[in-house]
């Protein structure tokens, strides 16, 4: 996966559809990122934090009992074992260091499930930065634990009250904050979305997932690679991260799994929102429609522009799974391997479980983007009759 063109596009997707007030800031950010990413000392500091603070490299875990149950050899890339419980910290540590390098002392972020918000609050605490997180009011209720974690870490959490009161609206409010605070604030975007350079920069900060996983898979499979690499897709950052380790290997199939109620690639048409052109769920007039998913982290009507491009070129496919399939997968991994997955990550597992006949005998690498602790309270209700 290569860099976008000069206009920030992957094929026909991407760009910089932001208010004029922010345009100088996104140009400055692009320049700062390019410079930092080419600077060995920046890389070294980030690597050091990823190792000593977040616990990288994360392991690759073989799943014997699950594999036997499904008839598919399943390997998990354990992003759930990162500090703060998901892949989100890879990107946030990169951006928080970049913010410091740019002389910005305040981080603004949006969050859906709260994982990106928690990661941002964590990095801000670590680096002594101020932090404000916007979160949809609906998501604050279903991810109460993460709201408390963010506040404990010293961040301010502001409810997004407009529209569907979920991730989409949190992004709107974070952008509105940034329009007013751009001189001293850094917008720490949580996925491979938004205006250029974010989709590219966030993917680069997550590339470490794919690089590690490819090397670990070669070790485990004595030189071979998995047949299929699967990840869930909200904005698409954990998927972009793991895909980037395998995209140049034509034998490896790439699969991004969307929620049935938020399948931007699967059911959307090209549109412009949150600074980017990409597949988008919208009505005939271009009004953005509300996504609906059991998982707050995937409850988003858009998708990162590079995924739209990967879909157009056929390099990756984007099937979707239902909430029921996700709940079953959540239980399945817990019972067979003793690993409680995040509801987001359970989407990737749900696809493998559903497609087990087609996948029989193949080796599938699943990006386990996060752990399910944050979802336990919500699942206590959902599973009340079953357990």
């Amino acid at each position, binding site marked *: 996966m290569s860099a976008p063109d000069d206009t920030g596009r992957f094929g026909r997707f991407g760009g910089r559809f932001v*208010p*004029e*007030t922010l*345009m100088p800031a996104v140009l400055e950010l692009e320049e700062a990122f390019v410079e930092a990413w080419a600077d060995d000392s920046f890389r070294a500091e980030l690597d050091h934090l990823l190792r000593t603070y977040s616990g990288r490299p994360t392991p690759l875990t073989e799943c014997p009992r699950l594999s036997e149950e499904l008839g598919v050899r399943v390997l998990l890339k354990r992003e759930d074992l990162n500090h703060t419980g998901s892949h989100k910290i890879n990107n946030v540590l990169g951006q928080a260091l970049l913010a410091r390098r740019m002389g910005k002392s305040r981080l603004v972020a949006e969050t859906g499930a709260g994982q990106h918000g928690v990661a941002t609050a964590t990095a801000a605490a670590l680096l002594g930065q101020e932090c404000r997180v916007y979160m949809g009011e609906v998501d604050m209720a279903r991810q109460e634990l993460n709201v408390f974690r963010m506040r404990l870490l010293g961040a301010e959490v502001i409810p997004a009250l*407009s529209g569907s009161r979920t991730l989409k609206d949190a992004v709107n409010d974070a952008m509105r904050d940034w*329009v007013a605070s751009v001189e001293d604030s850094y917008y720490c975007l949580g996925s491979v979305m938004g205006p250029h350079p974010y989709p590219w920069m966030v993917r680069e900060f997550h590339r470490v997932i794919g690089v590690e996983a490819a090397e670990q898979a070669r070790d485990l499979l004595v030189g071979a690679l998995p047949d299929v690499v699967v990840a869930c897709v909200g904005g698409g950052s954990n998927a972009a991260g793991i895909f980037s380790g395998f995209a140049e290997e034509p034998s490896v199939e790439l699969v991004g799994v969307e929620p049935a109620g938020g399948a931007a690639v699967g059911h959307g048409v090209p549109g412009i*929102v949150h*600074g980017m052109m990409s597949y988008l769920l919208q009505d005939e007039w*271009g009004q953005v429609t509300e996504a609906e998913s059991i998982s707050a982290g995937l409850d988003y009507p858009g998708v990162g522009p590079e995924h739209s491009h990967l879909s157009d070129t056929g390099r990756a496919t984007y099937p979707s799974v239902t909430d029921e399939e996700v709940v079953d997968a959540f239980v399945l991994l817990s019972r067979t391997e003793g690993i409680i997955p995040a509801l987001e990550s359970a989407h990737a597992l749900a696809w493998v479980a559903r497609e087990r006949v087609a996948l029989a005998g193949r080796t599938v690498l699943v990006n386990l983007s996060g752990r399910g602790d944050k979802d336990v309270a919500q699942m206590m209700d959902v599973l009340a009759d079953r357990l």
Partner: protein
Amino acid sequence: MSGEVGQLERSLRSRIDAGGKCLVPYLTGGLPQGPGAAWTTTMGAIAAAGADGVEVGIPFSDPVMDGPVIQAASQEALEAGATPQSILEELTRLDLGVPTAVMTYANLVFRFGWERFAASVAEAGVAAAILPDVPLEESGPWCDAADVAGVETVMLAAPTGDDARLAAVAERSGGFVYAVGLLGITGERERLADTSKVIAARLKSMTDKPVLVGVGIGSPEQAAEVCEVADGVVVGSAVVRCALETRSPEAVGDLVGGFREALARG
């Protein structure tokens, strides 16, 4: 833009040439009004109260440049069934005696089709368009279509831009140059932001086009103050708030009349 001056710029210039200051109020298209009144009645009241042009918002589900007042009005208009087509159709039937400009977000235009939207705007007799999430870098497809259709594209110039950027924005802008008065989204503020006069002065030093300040102009006093430097103002949230609170075309007309008087007094 071709060399000719469009309808909106002509209207503003005639005010400026007569020694006056320009007033362009904003109303959310399709916003329900009181019994017997339509939003277009309110448009009429605004024009009659001394506006030099009227900006009409075509409501979008995710208006990132807008504060709570215009967000609420957009939401309500959408719930009442407003679409880009319905608003343009109603504007077609309206003769205000002053030019109009539509203000909306990129996705509605993109979905409609850049060319088809530009043609529909022109057909509706609307002079200009303002797309706050289409900066210079992304303006090509829209501006090409608008130029062909003869629609003036009003570009926004922000306090964060350096001189080269402001000059490029002013050069591309048609109708007037929209000087964003402060760092932030639409909404009234206690006092006039210091950035308002600064951005107006910077733009005035680099362009002959009318320079109107918008965002954060909430009272007649603030309008008069910024017009010590600027050629005029765009008044959004104050007008929309009045429309939301009173649902009365007369009340909105009175409010706009108050701005006109303050600008005339200087």
